[in-house]
């Protein structure tokens, strides 16, 4: 059975064999960087086509079906279109910040990739405070949005950015609390340890009702954090035309677009890691035969399967619900989600202390 970790080990050994350890590490870093960029591109293409197909089927349409087999290369054609388009900078804009903003959005998304465990023993950086790192870095993404909104010299952009600021700052809270509930149960901030703690069952099953509540809150909060409908107030095209990226065009717009999708992927990956056991296969009690079959499926497939399931959930929400109003959005957070998650974290802590989980 092949796995990513074996390939990684092979590369590591051969590099260390030929080069000095420092040089080998540098080369490894370059390889990882290239891989991340490659993953970015692939994720962007896959998620865009996935979103378009999901939306089309929900909307009783066919969706893209002209470019390539079943329209699978549609997003590639879109990328080419965006690349050859003129990237304009408005004359009144703060040019430096305006051009910097999309790269910050992208870099934040890239940094978030680091502690993710894509498969068994396959992780860029086994960070002992992985969860903390993720929630810290993901808050930085608001800076790129604020930067884009402010520097565009456009009132729509500014309003979109301000909405986004209020929204992300608020929803960080409940996202943090729901993540915390798993941390409390697992007793570690290390993502790898959290995954290992789910070997005998995923937290969403082991932690029963309180963790399910945190899972629901987590999904709502990350939908809001990534500015996806029904919380896409930063874009809200029927109100603010395109929100913070109204003035962006060409590749700079594409970078924002890419960063949005990659952010969706990352938060779903975190969700899958924390609640659905990451790359851990699905096991049921003592059904050894069944468990064995599940083990046979590569761990990377488990990880991506769970992640894409969560991504599909978020897409499903997007194409079903209307958008909230800004005050309702904040009401939802401060009046409903935050009290519930505060109460929930208390419950989870009690549960963890008393050992009332499976």
């Amino acid at each position, binding site marked *: 059975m092949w796995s990513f970790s074996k390939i990684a080990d092979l590369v590591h050994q051969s590099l260390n064999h030929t080069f000095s350890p420092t040089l080998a590490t540098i080369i490894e870093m370059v390889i990882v960087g290239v891989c991340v960029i490659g993953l970015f591109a692939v994720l962007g293409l896959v998620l865009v086509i996935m979103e378009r197909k999901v*939306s089309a089927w*929900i*909307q*009783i*349409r066919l969706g893209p079906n002209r470019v390539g087999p079943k329209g699978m290369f549609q997003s590639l054609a879109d990328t080419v279109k965006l690349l050859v388009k003129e990237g304009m900078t408005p004359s009144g804009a703060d040019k430096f910040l305006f051009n910097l903003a999309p790269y910050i959005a992208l870099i934040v998304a890239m940094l978030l990739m680091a502690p993710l465990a894509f498969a068994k023993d396959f992780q860029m950086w086994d960070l002992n405070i992985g969860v903390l790192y993720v929630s810290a870095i993901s808050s930085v993404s608001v800076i790129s949005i604020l930067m884009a909104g402010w520097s565009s010299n456009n*009132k*729509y952009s500014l*309003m979109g950015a301000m*909405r986004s600021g209020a929204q992300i700052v608020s929803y960080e809270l409940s996202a943090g609390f729901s993540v915390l509930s798993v941390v409390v149960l697992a007793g570690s901030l290390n993502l790898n340890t959290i995954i290992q703690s789910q070997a005998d069952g995923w937290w969403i099953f082991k932690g029963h009702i309180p963790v399910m509540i945190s899972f629901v809150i987590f999904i709502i909060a990350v939908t809001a954090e990534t500015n996806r*409908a*029904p919380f*896409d*107030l930063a874009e*809200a*095209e*029927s*109100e*603010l*035309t395109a929100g913070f990226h109204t003035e962006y065009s060409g590749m700079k717009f594409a970078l924002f677009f890419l960063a949005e999708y990659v952010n969706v992927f990352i938060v779903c990956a975190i969700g899958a890691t924390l609640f659905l056991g990451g790359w851990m296969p699905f096991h049921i009690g003592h059904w050894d035969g069944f468990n064995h079959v599940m083990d046979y499926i590569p761990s990377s497939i488990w990880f991506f399967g769970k992640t894409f399931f969560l991504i599909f959930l978020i897409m499903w929400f997007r*194409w*079903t*619900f*209307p*958008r*909230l*109003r*800004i*005050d*309702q959005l904040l009401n939802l957070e401060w009046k409903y989600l935050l009290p519930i998650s505060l109460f929930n974290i208390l419950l989870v802590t009690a549960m963890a202390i008393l050992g009332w989980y499976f």
Partner: protein
Amino acid sequence: MVEEIGTTEEGDLIINVGPQHPATHGVLHLVITLNGETIKKVEPHLGYIHRSIEKMCESLTYRQFIYVTSRMDYLSAHINNHACALCVEKGLDVEIPRRAQVIRVLMDELTRIASHELWWGAMAMDLGAFTPFFHAFRERETINDIMEETCGARLTMNYMVPGGLMADLHPNFQKRVKEFITLYKLKINEYAELVTGNIIFQNRMKGVGYLSAEDAISYGCSGPTARGSGVSCDIRKLYPYEVYDKLEFDEVLETEGDSFARYMVRIGEMNQSIKIIEQLIDNIPDGDFQAKTKVVLKLPKGEFYSRVETARGELGVYIVSEGGTTPYRIKFRSPGFSNLSALDHMARGSKLGDLVAMMGTLDLVIPDIDR
């Protein structure tokens, strides 16, 4: 309108919504004064699609001018044509055959449903739900197919002419309308599932854009906009034309006066229209589809006014005739123009996101406002 761009002395933000904006469904231009997210003032600037139809009609004969009116409120083209035909018939003093009357009412009601379905989809899209738009088009397309078969066009039919109709019904008409009614009854529940019952949607609509009954009357609102405020103003009931006085249907009234009330009025009206169609579809009398009229129509000297209920409200056609073959002056009292004037009053003090909900429930069709 350009001098107001920027900020006011009090530091309020002034933004231009439109003329190219996703929520204005056309070329409406609103200059909005904002304090943060709160609207302080909405000022419409019109004229981006003004074609001066009233002036054009002054040089067209009574048979010719009707086609232009399809381009006013293009979503209820039949009803516009109907209003003009009624007004000319009033001047000519002809009674049109009963078959033509029934067919006109049928077409009007089908148009009303089609218009409300488009509104429903567009309204949901304004609020950020994209899927209902496509679902609404599925049903609307069926109506368009029916229209295409009988009238030869899908949007600007020019089917109602002075003296009756341009052509008789297509033989398939009754069958296909019945099919449509079956489809409609099957799918109408989805509307409630997807939009009406949705908690986000209800929160977005309830208590938003309040218009009291007195204000609705004072602003000259009509149609579902006024009926959502509890003002009884259905021309079909109050001043019945054609066969409406012999039909059983209810005037849908809601008293809350908010956007949700206007929404519910339109949904209720769709059901009432289905009720009217069901009453008439099997009872189309035989006979001519056109009254005998002269080739060249000449209206006597005088003034004629006809009122009909379009999907958006009361459409008035006011013809001043000097006895010639063309109208001396023609005035279209369009429902959208008056309804739009209430927008500023409704929007003050609410959030920017609410403006979209309000414009959605006013069901603005810009060519109807500009004419």
